[in-house]
């Protein structure tokens, strides 16, 4: 394994200077104040003496810890302790930051703040986020890799994982047509009435009938007022990818 071109096996000390790591439980020393702790982390990661005060101030600023600088870590709330953990991972400005489940056990407001912080970190560092909370991944990450039973089952951008899979749309009309009339529009494989004015439209394979649908609506005076492609959430994709695999495996087992 190499970090920033330095092998972790051959030269672990140099490789680790490029790495910031926050494990699931932040590795904190409760007896120290935030300042003492971050200064220790900076020294431990070979930040030059002259820059240490700056590095600590920067990390505190980024994680919103400036007001807590002289408090003992053991007296901080869980959310602030998590922030100290993140500050610890970025104090030496590493190229790669690895965060393992950084929002576990936080309240919704803290989660939002931490996510915002992680987004900001992404501008300056490469952040690897490990999480089981898929909406979090969807809102924070650019690229996603799904690992199932030690096998990579998906790797790509979050957008591709969710948007490209669109196979259906919700349409609404002020003067709704009959289901049969909708079904006659080319490229539509199935129609299901949701209520008096809304329909769920399934696309024929490999076709996007949205333009044809809008044109038909204009021609027949259906007064289209909603056309929304159904995107899958990352969670649905995840379930699809991981359980699909299992069923496949089961089939294979049964076949054998």
């Amino acid at each position, binding site marked *: 394994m190499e970090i920033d071109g330095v092998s972790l096996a051959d030269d*672990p*000390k*140099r*490789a*680790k*200077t490029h*790495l910031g*790591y926050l*494990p*699931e*439980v*932040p*590795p*904190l*020393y409760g*007896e*120290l104040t935030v300042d*003492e702790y971050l200064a*220790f*982390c900076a*020294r*431990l*990661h*070979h930040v030059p003496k002259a820059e240490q005060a700056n590095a600590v101030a920067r990390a505190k600023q980024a994680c919103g810890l400036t007001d807590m600088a002289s408090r003992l870590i053991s007296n901080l709330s869980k959310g602030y302790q998590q922030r100290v953990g993140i500050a*610890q991972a970025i104090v030496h400005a590493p190229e790669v930051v690895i965060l393992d489940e950084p929002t576990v056990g936080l309240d919704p407001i803290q989660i939002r703040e931490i996510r915002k912080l992680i987004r900001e970190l992404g501008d300056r560092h490469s952040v690897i986020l490990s999480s089981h909370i898929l909406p979090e991944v969807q809102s924070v990450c650019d690229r996603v890799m799904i690992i199932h039973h030690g096998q990579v089952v998906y790797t790509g951008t979050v957008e591709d994982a969710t948007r490209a899979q669109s196979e259906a749309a919700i349409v609404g009309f002020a003067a709704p047509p009959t289901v049969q009339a909708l079904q006659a529009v080319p490229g539509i494989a199935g129609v299901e009435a949701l209520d008096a004015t809304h329909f769920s439209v399934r696309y024929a394979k490999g076709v996007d009938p949205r333009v044809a649908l809008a044109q038909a609506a204009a021609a027949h005076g259906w007064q289209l007022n909603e056309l929304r492609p159904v995107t899958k959430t990352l969670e649905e994709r995840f379930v699809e990818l991981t359980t699909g695999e299992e069923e496949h495996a089961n089939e294979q087992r049964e076949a054998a």
Partner: protein
Amino acid sequence: MTGTLTIARVEARRIFASPLAWAILAVMQVILGIFFILYLNAYTQAQMMSSDPQLGVADYIGGGLYGTANVILLLVVPLMTMRLFAEERKNNSLTLLLSAPASLTEIVLGKFLGLASFLLAAIALLAAMSFTLEAGTALDTGRILAGLLGLLLMMLAFGAAGLFISTLTREPVIAAVATFGVLLVFWILGAVGHSPTVPFADAFNYLSLIGHFENLRRGVVSTMDVAYYLLFILLFLWLAVLRLDMERN
């Protein structure tokens, strides 16, 4: 090397920020104070009875008090070494050091030096107590210092063994109990060595931690005894590095 000093500094800071260290120092000082007075009392009585002009107060302090201090420290050191690795592992804070650009040797040495700062403080308090006698008599300073040096070496040896055992488990209490057991075994090896019917009695005698303390306590600083303690310390620190390396792979 800077890694070692960084870790040692923060380790010492953490030891002295915890109430455990102060509680231990306070209790030790009270108990040793009581023994100090008892030994002084015994000395004044012995002096009245005996006609030996060679008998000095340093015999009682060096011989008696430091022997007692040794037993008390045997109980205390496991409490301090258990936190070094076992407690950190339990608190999940060990990853900070392991993922940092510091070698295992630096981590182990740093932790050991941090612990040494506490042991030095304990012995400094004892030294302060002994040297109060300077006010009333001409003290045999060399003998007192030899005794203190022996005590320090003995404590560092205890500490190194405790540090190694602390790397073996994630339960601090188990680390403390096991350390106490191991130290006691090294201690009684001397007693085994004294029995003439035991085979290899000399070897047991040589390995015993307490045997090498006897000379120093009598004011004899021999390089062989000092070397024994240094080897003992290095052996256990090396074992600790090996153990952490095994865990990593």
